[in-house]
């Protein structure tokens, strides 16, 4: 059976290595993904902070398309898309008025309840940890990884209901499963500043500085993420952070799917490791 796949805008551009590595991992594991037909942008932060209904409707339209396609569930690897899709699904389920309005705005009624999964949930609950464990060819051999969840994977917990909002463990468990060593650190769910990177760059640089300081203090060699915004803000802006605060962080920020791929025996090229601004090549030579 194919799983519904909602890549979202980032995975086609700024987070292309997330898309590449996810597809490579799924190819290797024999997981079939079926892209949601004619998917549109989930609206991200700008939609729901401009018009409440717009934020729900843009996300809902994708759930509608997926249900019409006969899909039963959707894997949304981007944490922001996951958050918005899940929010729309929650909103129509819990409010008949919102449901009615969404039907009016999109001209369609969902044929079934759409389940939306993030990447960690997908490997934990759908594909299964035992299955993944059985497929490991090259364990990461004690690589010290700071598992960074950020905001949108875990909050609001009432809507997402996936992992602990203050001390989530699903990514740590996954990294441990593939042979890595998830470090203890204090910024697992701190905010990276998200879409403020463009309009309020200074805020994002300061928040990034705090995250790197904590990861370094925890003994991490790299940061693993499941969100294109977190990845861009930490990887692409790392040199700006160093320049601004006179620091010397050199910490690769990689997608968790890239690490899974390595453990499955895929090559760095197949997993898009050349797309990072702070290269992980040196670290992974060991």
């Amino acid at each position: 059976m194919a799983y519904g796949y909602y890549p979202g805008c980032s995975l086609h551009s700024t987070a292309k290595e997330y898309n590449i590595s996810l597809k490579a991992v799924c190819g290797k594991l024999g997981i079939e993904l079926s892209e949601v037909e004619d998917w549109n942008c989930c609206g991200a932060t700008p939609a729901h902070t401009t018009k409440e209904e717009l934020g729900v409707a843009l996300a809902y339209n994708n759930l509608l398309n997926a249900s019409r396609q006969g899909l039963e569930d959707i894997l949304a690897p981007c944490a922001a898309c996951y958050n918005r899709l899940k929010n729309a699904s929650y909103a129509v389920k819990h409010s008949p008025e919102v449901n009615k309005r969404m039907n009016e705005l999109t001209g369609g009624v969902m044929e079934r309840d759409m389940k939306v999964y993030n990447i960690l949930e997908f490997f934990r609950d759908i594909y299964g940890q035992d299955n993944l464990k059985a497929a490991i060819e090259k364990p990461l051999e004690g690589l010290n990884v700071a598992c960074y969840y950020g905001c949108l994977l875990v909050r609001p917990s009432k809507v997402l209901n996936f992992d602990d909002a203050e001390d989530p463990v699903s990514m740590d468990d996954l990294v441990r499963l593939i042979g890595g060593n998830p470090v203890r650190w204090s910024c697992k769910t701190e905010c990276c500043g998200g879409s403020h990177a463009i309009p309020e760059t200074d805020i994002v640089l300061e928040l990034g500085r705090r995250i790197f300081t904590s990861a370094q203090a925890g003994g991490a060699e790299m940061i693993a993420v499941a969100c294109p915004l977190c990845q861009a803000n930490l990887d692409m802006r790392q040199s700006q952070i160093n320049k601004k605060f006179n620091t010397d962080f050199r910490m690769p920020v990689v997608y968790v799917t890239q690490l899974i791929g390595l453990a499955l025996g895929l090559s760095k090229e197949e997993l898009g490791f050349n797309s990072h601004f702070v290269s992980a090549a040196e670290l992974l030579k060991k």
Partner: protein
Amino acid sequence: MQLKLDNNVNQFANEIEHLSGCSISDCYQCGKCSAGCPVGEFVEESPTRLMRLIQLNQRQAVLNSKTPYLCATCTTCSERCPMKIDVAKVMETIRILACKEGLRPAVKAVSNFSGAFLDSVKSNGRLFEFGMTVTFNLKNGTPFKNATIAPAMLLKGKLSFLPQSIKNKERLKNIFANSSYFEDREEKKEH
């Protein structure tokens, strides 16, 4: 700040409660929302203070505050509020209300970014990052903002020069044209 209180002191709190579905009067000023706020140190009015200003009917001060714009919508405040107030939803509500009333946004750059982002989604159905950044810079009057980042991203193949477009533009048009600023919470309250 000097506060003027009048007889109708709950008017604005009631308005925000109605629009957001959050109970403003439940806030007893514990400060937990501000303690965990990632942008707390960048704003004049902390979330706690803003909640208090709503309780004190300070409509103009609240709608002109920078805090709701600088809010990163991380929802840490909502997650930790001991009274289960969705503080982030209150921030969002203030921002939408200010926009609905046509007020000059308290943080122009954030508002311009949202505008450029939504313009891009409105015309293509998907975000066209390169075009959005150019539009934002023009709107914002900062033509060279992020100018060093864009070429590096292009080199890494992380930015495309051409937008992707969806097929069902009619439905998209309807969504943009007919979405309301706020959900109608009237009926829900009666239940």
